[in-house]
Structures are given as C-alpha cells and as structure tokens.
C-alpha cells in the first residue's frame, strides 16, 4: 500500500452535493431541543434542523430572529446520531463561520431568520460545510447554486401550515425549466443576464448616491471579486446544465407550510426530492405520530391507500394561517 500516495480533499463540491444526495427521500425536521431531536430521530427523520424557535413561534414572537444559541445546537448534536443542520441569517458570514467551527453538518442560509445583508447572500464556495438555501423561483435557485449552495428548498411560507406558497414555488421552478428546455442557447444567455441583475443592486445604489451614470464598468466587481459578466457566464453554465438535465443539478426539497402527510405526498408527487417540516410537527396535537406519519408519507408518496391509512391516526394538524392575512411574509426575504 506504500506506493499509493494518499491525497485527501475536503469540502469539495462533490462532497457537499453528495451529502445532500444522502438525505434524498427523507424528512428533515426542525427541532429546538434535545428531546425534540430524539423524537425526530426516533420517527425516522434523515436529519434535524437546530433552531431557537419553530417558524410559527418566530412569527408570534416577532423581533430579530438569529442563529440558535450555541449550547442548544451542541445539545442537539450530542443527542442524535443523524446529521444536524442549523440556520444562519441571510448574508451573515460570521454566524456561518461559527456554525462551521462548531461542526454542524449543513448550514441553512434562511429567510426564516431576519436577514443580515440587504444586498447579498453568502459566497458559499468559501466554506467546507455544505449549504442549503431557499428559492421561490428559478432565478433565485440558480443564483444560490452559483454561490455554491449544495441543496435548494422551496421557501414556502414558513410557520403557516399552509402549503399554497410551496406549491407556487415548485410550479414556478418546474415550468421555468421546461421553458428553458425549449430555448436556444442564445435565449438562455439572455435569461442568465436577467437572473444576474440582483447582484447589481448595491453598485446601482452607490451610483445613484454618487450622482454617477447608471452604467456599470466591465472590470468592476459587483459581488465579491466577480464582475457582472463573470456572474452572467456562471449562471449561464448552470442554466445549460439545467436545460440538459431537465431539473436542478442539486437536490431540491420542499419546505414551508407542510402540515399533513398528504401535504408531504403532494410535494413528492410534484417532483421534490424530500421535505423539510417545521411547525407542522410540533404544533400538531401529537408530534410523535405526526412526525412518523410524514416520514412514511414521503416514502409512500405514490400510494394513496397507504397515505389514507397513515392519515387516520395522527390527531389534529396545526391550525394553519391564511396567507393574505399575514403581516410578515418571510418568503420575500432574500432574492
């Protein structure tokens, strides 16, 4: 064996995307303490998301929602053997570095927390830990993938127990992919230019304040050290891959509003690779039963008779909120 020179690589894109692939067909559950984490593991969750409050309580409490307390995350990591994820605020590089140092298995750069950066998301390529990010449409998904996200989830409208926004996001992404597949490569390039525009917001604002013409310079970095043209080229490459694959090149989960086994099955039927569940479990009348039922529903998504049997013994799902009556729309955070 001496002849074989052993070179080790860590934090590669293959390892990050590979980790996300290993949770496919599974349910990732929000938990706020060790006891809930054990309930989730016992119910067959593939991973838990450690956070301070479930989204429904974040809504109720108001105020600034931040990364969970480190002791709590550590307590959860010590309680279970399945992977542990945790959320950081959008653009909060320092929170992300803390979670990476702590050794969480995946970071969710999440709109459920109060955003830290009004312009940009984290450049996730700079990290060894994989990231998952939310997306409402193909533009958001492609931007997050270019930034290095190893996994995408729908944003849904977290903490509402109302699936309508998650369904909207799945449709917007899926139909946009079908449209891309009908386009010429030149047309796809134009889409990449449009998708790159949010990266220009800071540069444009600076110009406006400074009384300068709107035109951005060719050699001017607009996000990290990347120029607008470099970003367009990066997004274009990802779009071509999507055109070829007919799907996102990374694992895509549903999140935001999943409250019943049938909700979870609906998301799988619409082509999702798995499901995140937050308030839907711990705001139901019997969390243990609901957790197990949602795991089984994801596994049996195409067998309505099984879903029917599962749905019988689970008590009351969370009450749910009408989206139009919400004061705060979490999904609108971070484009």
């Amino acid at each position, binding site marked *: 064996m001496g002849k*074989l020179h052993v070179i080790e690589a860590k934090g590669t894109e*293959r390892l990050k995307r590979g*980790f996300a692939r290993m949770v496919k067909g599974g349910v990732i559950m929000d938990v706020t303490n060790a006891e809930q984490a054990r309930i989730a593991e016992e119910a067959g969750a593939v991973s838990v998301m450690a956070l301070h409050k479930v989204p429904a309580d974040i809504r109720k409490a108001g105020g600034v929602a931040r990364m969970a307390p480190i002791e709590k995350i550590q307590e959860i990591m010590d309680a279970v053997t399945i*992977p542990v994820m945790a959320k950081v605020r959008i653009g909060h590089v320092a929170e992300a570095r803390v979670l990476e140092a702590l050794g969480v298995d*995946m970071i969710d750069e999440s709109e459920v927390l109060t955003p830290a950066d009004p312009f940009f998301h984290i450049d996730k390529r700079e990290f060894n830990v994989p990231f998952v990010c939310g997306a409402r449409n193909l533009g958001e998904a492609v931007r997050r993938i270019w930034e290095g996200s190893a996994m995408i989830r729908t944003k849904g409208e977290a903490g509402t127990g109302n699936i309508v926004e998650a369904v909207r996001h799945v449709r917007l992404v899926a139909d946009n992919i079908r449209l891309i597949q009908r386009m010429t490569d030149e047309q796809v390039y134009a889409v990449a230019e449009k998708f790159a525009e949010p990266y220009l917001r800071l540069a444009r604002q600076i110009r406006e304040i400074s009384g300068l013409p709107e035109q951005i310079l060719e050699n001017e970095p607009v996000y990290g050290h990347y120029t607008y043209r470099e970003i367009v080229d990066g997004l274009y490459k990802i779009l071509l891959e999507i055109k070829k694959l007919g799907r996102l090149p990374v694992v895509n989960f549903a999140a935001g509003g999943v409250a019943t086994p049938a909700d979870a099955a609906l998301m799988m039927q619409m082509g999702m690779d798995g499901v995140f569940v937050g308030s839907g479990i711990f705001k139901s009348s019997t969390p243990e039963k609901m957790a197990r039922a949602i795991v089984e529903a994801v596994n049996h998504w195409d067998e309505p008779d099984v879903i029917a049997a599962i749905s019988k013994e689970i008590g009351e799902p969370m009450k749910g909120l009408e989206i139009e009556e919400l004061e705060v729309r979490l999904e609108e955070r971070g484009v």
Partner: protein
Amino acid sequence: MLRVGVIGVQGAVSEHIEAVKRAFERLGVEGEAFWLRRPEQLNAIDAIILPGGESTTISRLMQKNGLFEPVKKLGEEGLPIMGTCAGLILLAKEVEGAVEGQRFLELLDVRVNRNAYGRQVDSFEAPLKLSFSDEPFPGVFIRAPKIVELLNDKVKPIAWHGDEVVGVEQGNIIGLAFHPELTDDARLHEYFLRKAL
C-alpha cells in the same frame, strides 16, 4: 437480462441506478436497474444494492415496508447484495454507535463504527487501492462508517485507503464505506454485477 434492484426507501438511489447502467454497458450485458420499494418486486431479481443515506431511516422503513426480512433471507440464500456507506452498516453483523432498537441485516461478518470519521466537515475524497485493479479508485467518504474489524477469514478486503480496509466482500455480499455511485467510475459496480452473471 439482469435485474438489479436498488433499495429505494431513502438515500442516493438514482445515482446507483445510473452507475449500474454504466456497468451494464461496460460488461456488454442486457439489464434493468430499478427502484425497489415493495416486497413483490423481489421476485425474479438478480442482485440488490443498498444505497447510502441514513441507516436508521432506511432500516426503519425497510421493516415497515416488509422488505427487511425477505432481503435478509435472499442474502443468506446467496443473492448478490452490495451496500455502500449506510448500506454497509445495514449489512454488518456488529455496529458500534447504533441507535437503540435499530436492526441490521447481519449478512457481513464485520464490525463497523457508524460515525467513526466524524461529521460532514470531516468528509473527504481520497484515492483507494482495489484488490482487482492497478488503477486507483476515487473514494468519496461522506460521514462514512469505518470497518473496525473483520470478524473471521470469510471476509476479504477489496479496497484500502492507505492501509485501512474500506471495502470487503464475503461470498455474495459486498460492503463499501464509500460512495462509488457519486463518481463516473463503474469498476466496483461492474465487479459486483459479475457475481450475478
């Protein structure tokens, strides 16, 4: 016509199906690779793959699905079965770090440590030495289990990382701590499928 079922309850199922198709091509055999989710699909099957994923979840769902006992029986009767990462854990006779009440197929006489390499930040890629090929194999280790002991000499090493054993075979059973399905290299799938030819 070779029929290969990838246990499709959770994890990297489609990646194995694609890898099996590449191996069919290299072997020049007609074959079919499919998602194996129900016990009735075990009729007229030639080989089974247990994918990577969460071993606790896969074990639980296989019992719930009625796949657990029949797969164990087929393995004991000599059907070729390969497990990668979580799949290796499911095949092992002894598991360190198992969750209480978790069940294993116990088809491979090895002791594995479930979270031996640590968390995702410790996941790594490294070239491996194979027993049947001179070319190094790209090893992808994601929250990988470690093979800490071969329990008898029926178990033969087939892959090494440095001088550590990371892949074994025991007759019809293959267990790998890493993920060949995440690479383009189909040599291990090909090696496994030869057992079914």
